[in-house]
């Protein structure tokens, strides 16, 4: 399912099955290109989306990605919110920890994504669900 991104300033993408992870990458690419992000910024944002989408599908039991085009005066930005009603994260500090020399990639989704964006917010409650919000400004 594709969302129209031409004139809209917000929308959402379901994250239920593996194929949705690819779809979310493609939506974020369209948005980043639309906002004329630099190539490196595009890559960072799409990669962050990929990590967080996967978390939602694989660990969150499915959910959705909400996107929003932001304007703050002259600045333009893109905000993505990943929501699920999954098991939730018990220890947030632990979830966000990593050594950047770990190298093998396990569990880098949250902490890694944080480094790829300008603003990062994580809300989670055990048994209720998780919401991760990331924002990149142009």
């Amino acid at each position, binding site marked *: 399912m594709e969302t129209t991104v031409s004139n809209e300033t917000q929308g959402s993408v379901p994250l239920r099955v593996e*194929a949705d992870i690819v779809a979310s990458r493609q939506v974020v690419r369209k948005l980043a290109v639309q906002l004329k992000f630099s190539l490196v910024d595009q890559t960072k944002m799409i990669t962050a989306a990929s990590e967080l989408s996967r978390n939602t599908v694989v660990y969150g039991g499915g959910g959705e990605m909400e996107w929003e085009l932001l304007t703050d005066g002259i600045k333009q930005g893109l905000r993505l919110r990943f929501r699920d009603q999954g098991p939730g994260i018990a220890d947030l500090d632990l979830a966000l920890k990593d050594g950047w020399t770990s190298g093998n990639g396990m569990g880098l989704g949250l902490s*890694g994504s944080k480094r790829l964006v300008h603003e990062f917010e994580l809300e989670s409650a055990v048994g209720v669900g998780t919401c991760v919000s990331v924002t990149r400004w142009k």
Partner: protein
Amino acid sequence: MYRIPILRMGRTLLVTIQIDMEDQTAMALQDDLAEQISKTGANGVLIDISALEIVDSFVGRMLAAISGIGQILDATTVVVGMKPAVAITLVELGMSLDGVRTALNVSRGMALLEAASDGDHRVE
């Protein structure tokens, strides 16, 4: 399910990833390569990622896994063509892909594989 084709050139296996892969496609590639290395006795694997605009931690882990598997099966793996933006992002993400050999492009990659297989005699 779409499977990424593996080409064979002498004792080298060549893979060019040109699509935005689903996780299962990446896992299938890993399985297929392991099988092919074993079946053909290949001593080199060249993975061309010059068309990939995104390499996230999942694909990164897959590349590291293939590299490790190859090593156990006595094959050298080289990943070529990583885009600058991808390299910058992987570093920021925290993946150093330490065990994975890389080269700028296919010809450099082939040269690396040749050098690695020098003195490698196949028992027929």
